[in-house]
């Protein structure tokens, strides 16, 4: 029924758009160019208690039919005004403030704003903003979709990895940091955590991490601007066989490898010998889970990193009071991860799939990314242009003109030039990530 509703609303939008098109056409005087009728659409940002509106916040208005986006900035009262033709619109806002040492992010969207001839110019569309904090540690890149094999027999997906990055100017400790992914494993799969159209765990302040989590065996600290590569599967030089794949034979890399817990021989070959055993992550499989591999979706995972506060990841994993079961299958055990523990997360949708549903709540990831999987593509964090360009030592080192990143800066090329990159972090992957056609670790 829900899907039907979605389809009806889409259909309604199309009908309205067509109606407007034809309505406009019928008014055209054969001897004159048509005058485009526009309407003023005012958008008012509604902040959480304790925060005042600010002038100059970017507000984007997207026409849901034509996908055109216009941008305006708020005045001191937090209001932005647009001139828009009749249509159906979605407003989105993402604002970052630095208060003391903390970065606070406000994300908000409002969709289904229908502008017609009956539009009241005095009306205001109010967009409630959700407050969240950014963390010094971010997911710089998640490569989960695999690549094509050389013999043409299909895809090789046993080379997933994630890169963590210290996006702050202070050292970042990875103590008690754990890796997980949410139920359900894919965005297009049946999601029984939705009750009356909303994720019921959002109000309760937790996320359902499924099957198992991984954590470091030793204390690791990342210096500002330092990254850490974790091979999720196949921590070897995969390029010997699969030329489109990744070479993980690097002593600095870490590997999810715990053959006593996840014994799948294909997913977990012995890591490259240059990776020290101390860099093997430890798996904590939840009770009753029988799978032999930690199967991060190759199409559409909701991936998180979180810090177990006050307990170790191992203690967290065996605590039956935190148990949560996948909506349709109680034998698929998971654990409730408090939202405040979550350091970063990324919601990935199956490309072009109408059944996609959000799993990460808005304070973790207010948006989503789509990935073309099995083609060597990767999801890579955008550069915070303003912050990066503000660093004096970056002068002359930034490689511009890179269209895939909205900042225009090619982070990887710039790093090779010796640049220090600050990545964008608005807790909204739609704003924060882009799809690269080549993984950063690929030769």
């Amino acid at each position, binding site marked *: 029924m829900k899907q039907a509703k979605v389809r009806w609303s889409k259909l309604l939008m199309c009908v309205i758009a067509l109606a407007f098109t034809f309505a406009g056409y019928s008014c055209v005087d054969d001897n004159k160019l048509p005058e485009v009728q526009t309407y003023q659409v005012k958008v008012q940002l509604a902040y959480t208690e304790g925060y005042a509106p600010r002038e100059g916040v970017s507000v984007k208005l997207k026409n849901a039919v034509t996908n055109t986006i216009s941008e305006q900035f708020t005045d001191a009262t937090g209001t932005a005004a647009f001139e828009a033709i009749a249509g159906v619109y979605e407003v989105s806002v993402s604002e970052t403030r630095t208060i003391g040492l903390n970065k606070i992010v406000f994300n908000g969207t409002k969709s289904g704003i229908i502008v017609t001839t009956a539009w009241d110019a005095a009306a205001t569309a109010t967009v409630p903003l959700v407050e969240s904090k950014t963390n010094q540690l971010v997911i710089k890149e998640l490569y989960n979709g695999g690549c094509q*094999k*050389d*013999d*043409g*027999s*299909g895809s*090789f997906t*046993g*080379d997933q990895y994630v890169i963590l990055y210290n996006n702050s100017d202070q050292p970042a400790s990875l103590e008690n940091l754990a890796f997980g992914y949410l139920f359900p494993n894919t965005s297009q799969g049946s999601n029984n955590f939705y009750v009356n159209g909303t994720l019921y765990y959002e109000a309760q302040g937790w996320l359902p991490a499924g099957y198992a989590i991984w954590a470091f065996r030793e204390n690791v600290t990342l210096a500002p601007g330092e990254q850490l590569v974790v091979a999720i599967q*196949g921590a*070897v*030089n*995969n*390029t*010997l*066989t*699969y030329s489109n*794949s990744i070479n993980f*034979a690097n002593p600095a890399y870490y590997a999810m490898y715990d*053959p*006593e*817990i*996840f*014994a799948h*021989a*294909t997913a977990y*070959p*012995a*890591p*490259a*010998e*240059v*990776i*020290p*055993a*101390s860099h093997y992550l430890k798996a*904590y*499989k939840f*009770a*009753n*889970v*029988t799978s*032999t591999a930690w199967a991060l979706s190759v199409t559409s995972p909701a991936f998180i990193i979180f810090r177990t506060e006050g307990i170790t990841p*191992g*203690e967290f994993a*065996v*605590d*039956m009071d935190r*148990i*949560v*079961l996948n909506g*349709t*299958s*109680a*034998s698929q055990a998971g654990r409730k991860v408090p939202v405040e523990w979550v350091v970063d997360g990324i919601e990935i949708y199956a490309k072009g799939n109408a059944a996609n549903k959000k799993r990460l709540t808005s304070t973790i990831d207010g948006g989503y990314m789509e990935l073309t999987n099995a083609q060597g593509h990767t999801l890579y964090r955008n550069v915070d242009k303003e912050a990066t360009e503000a660093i004096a030592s970056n002068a002359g080192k930034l490689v511009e003109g890179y269209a895939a990143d909205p900042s225009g800066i090619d982070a990887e090329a710039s790093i090779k030039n010796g640049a220090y990159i600050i990545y964008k972090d608005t807790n909204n992957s739609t704003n924060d990530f882009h799809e690269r056609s080549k993984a950063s670790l690929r030769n």
Partner: protein
Amino acid sequence: MRVFRLVVIFLIWSTSQTVFCQYSISGKALDSKTGNPVEYASVVLADRGLWAISNEQGEFTIKNISPGQINVVVSCLGYAKREFPLKVTKTMQGLEFRLQEDNLSLKEVTVTAKRKRDEIATTYVIDRNGLDHLQVLNVADALSLLPGGQSTRSPHFASSEQLIALRSASGESGNPTFGTAIEVDGVRLSNNGSYNSGITTVYGVDTRSIASGTIESVEVVTGIPGVEYGDMTSGMVKVNTRKGKSPLSAEVSIKPNTKLYAANKGFDLGQAAGVLNVSLEHTKSISDLASPYTSYDRNGLSVYYSNTVNKHHQPIRIESGMTGNIGGYNTQDDPDAFTDTYTKKKDNTLRANIKANWLLQRSWITNLEASATMSYADNLLTEKTNKSGSSSVAAIHGREEGYFVANNYDENPTAPVVLIPAGYWYQLAYTDNKPLNVNATIKARWAHLVGNVNSNLLVGTDFTSSGNLGKGTYYDELRYAPTWREYRFDEIPFMNNLAAYVEAKTELSLSKQSALQAVAGIRSDQTFVRQSAYGTVSSLSPRFNAKYAYKGNRDQWIEHFALRAGWGKAVKLPSFAVLYPMPSYSDKLIFAPGTMADGTSVAAYHIRPFAAKYNPNLQWQYNQQAEIGFEAKIKGVNISVSFFKNKMMNGYNSVNEYSPFAFKFTDSPSEGFPIPSENRQYSIDQTTGIVTVHDKTGQVSDQTLAYKERNQFKSDNTYINGSPAVRKGIEWVVDFGEIKPLRTSVRVDGNYYHYRAAEQSLMQYSPTTQEMADGNLYKYVGFYVGGYGDSNGYETKQLNANVTFITHIPAIRLIVSLKLESTLYNSRQNLSEYSGGQRSFAVADKSDYVPAPDNPYKIYNSDRFVATYPLYYASIDDLGTKIPFAEKFLWAKENDPALYNELASLVMKSNTDYYFNENKVSGYYSANISVTKEIGKHASLSFNATNFTNTIGLVTIGWNHTQQTLFRSSYIPQFYYGLSLKIKV
């Protein structure tokens, strides 16, 4: 035992009768239309064990007939079988039995399954007319003609085996397909010696290799069969191929996914030389119309020779047949598959039989029959798959216990652990499975009479030997063989079974119109299982059937009435998978120091072989069958009803047993290890598991690596006898006869089937790849009633009802049938039962592990999640002490959170809150139409459309209150159609 005693008393009484005066009958078999003699017609007095074959002049003589009522059955290929009741009070000569050519111009043509009235046990026969009209391309399809039977769901049989389960359903407890016996011309198709796809599961034989185009009739025995039939628990299907003299006929049958071509001819080799009937058939069934490459091919040949020698004095009827098939499943030509990858499974079969029936007609023996049969199958499975790896992959082939380091194949091809190098390669695997079954039987029949009591004594013995000539699984290149150990099926000794049986059949005339018939028999099987702990096993199968028959006059309300009852025990011998379980191995990776830059790696494994586990308490599976039924013809309406109750005992069940296993796990050399990685050479002590690193350059002395002592469970497989499974049901057929103005007869048939089984055996489970809070591997094992699963059985109830309208117009040789198939009731209830208490508890929330505060025992139809506890648990340190689980778990929740967290791993939770609700599916229907038209004497055309309305309605799934479309569902057949043309020259 009381029944057993009664059977023995009955047998003694039967054999104590004496013989009175005897007569003979003689006459001719003639073509009803031309009056020409019919040669090779068989004239059989089944009750008396007497027979004759007509000569060139159609003449026959049967001597030594005791006086009384007899039923003469006259049959000949190409003619409709006829029965002539006769009362023998003197020698009768000049009898004329006129036979009509079997075609649609006959007044009576049967295109449904017909109840065999001369058999006491419920038996249905489907003859060639029915098979043609339905366009049966596979034997299993024919069963849709049984009461309540439904059409085959899939329009093809390319990719799935076609198994038969009578009065049962596949998937149920007690291996119903394995227990259903299938015979082709008396040759048993046995799966006893087969290691098919399910090594730990036993299945019945695949019927796809039986060429349907060569079949003359199919008999289905669902009741209690005679004691001459052993090694089965779920009824039997007897397939008879074409026999006798017949003109050349050819058939083409086409369905969207399947095409069949068949030809047949019966050659008259002369009165002295006999008759040879030859049938050929080619069938191809494809799985996907859009990609017609994955197929099952059948090339069937059937040859049947019959002759009678010593015709004038104690004739001997010799019959010998051979059926065979070359074909199987093949994906090789599929262009959608990756280059040069395929799966092929041969289904080549050879079945042969020879039988001699010697009509001795002595005062102490009527006839003696000796037969020998052989059934051999070549089910070689060939799978070629493409493989790749970015680092070398360990393949374990060792059978010895201990720790072993992997070797490169070129260095040591016979090493216990071999490394398959990184890169791309093909793996070509063979599984050579060649079951062979041979049988020799000798049986004697003695028909005699005392007063008006006809008695018929059958004594026989048979010897059966089952084995396998296959090589088991092997690979073309050992270099690329994955983890595997050779297990040659041809090295397993044959299982031999010697049976002896005696059966007495007595018919007592109670009055002119009524008679009582009783059959009692007992069968003894001695099974010799060589080189096995089972040794010699004996079993007894007593069986008893009785029938009271009343025959009225045509003008009476009741034209005839018969009441039948039967009871019996049938034993199923185990398969080789049960008797000679494959030895299993536990391979544990205990050291993996990292993959080198060139993709090579080193790995060490601990191998633990488990000897084949025999269960000294294993008993042979048997079925206790009881049946009661009646047939009647009331005011022209034929009614047949059967009630049955079968209790399957000691079904073969595969279970795991856990034992503790201690091993050393060695970590990779730490950073700063004195020997550089490129110079390291690893060795491991086979006994202690200590890893030593040697310096190839010799500069650094040997270094031993630190290890962790680990304890874990390892599971091994064995067979036990399962709990009883009870099946009950009713089958009915009501044939209203022809509505003359419409030339249409109406038949209503159906069945109600009820199955219930809940396994009560204690079975073990432990999550072995899980760690506990202290970092040790999981150390508890749970003992579950009926296994680690939400349910330990289920109950099904199903009511099927069919209505068939058959319009037959003999004048234009046309028959049209419309069959409406319906399932009016279909329900399944998962069960969690323990005779000694509660096995599962309702929980308040799906995340809960403890029983709900309210009504925890109400698990059925409660819309709640359910937790299942083991009855006991034990620790790896003390497996002998079984601790009651529920009590300790609930105590731990309050007093020991760490133990509670650990024990929670042994709790099984239902997937949904409706798992234990009754799953009732609302009624559903479909309709089939079949048309057969004979064009002159030489051609006939059939058209058949299954689910021709292409029903796309919805059914309600009561479990979770959802609806499901019937379109392409498993509830009704898919829409498909077929056309066949048959030409007779």
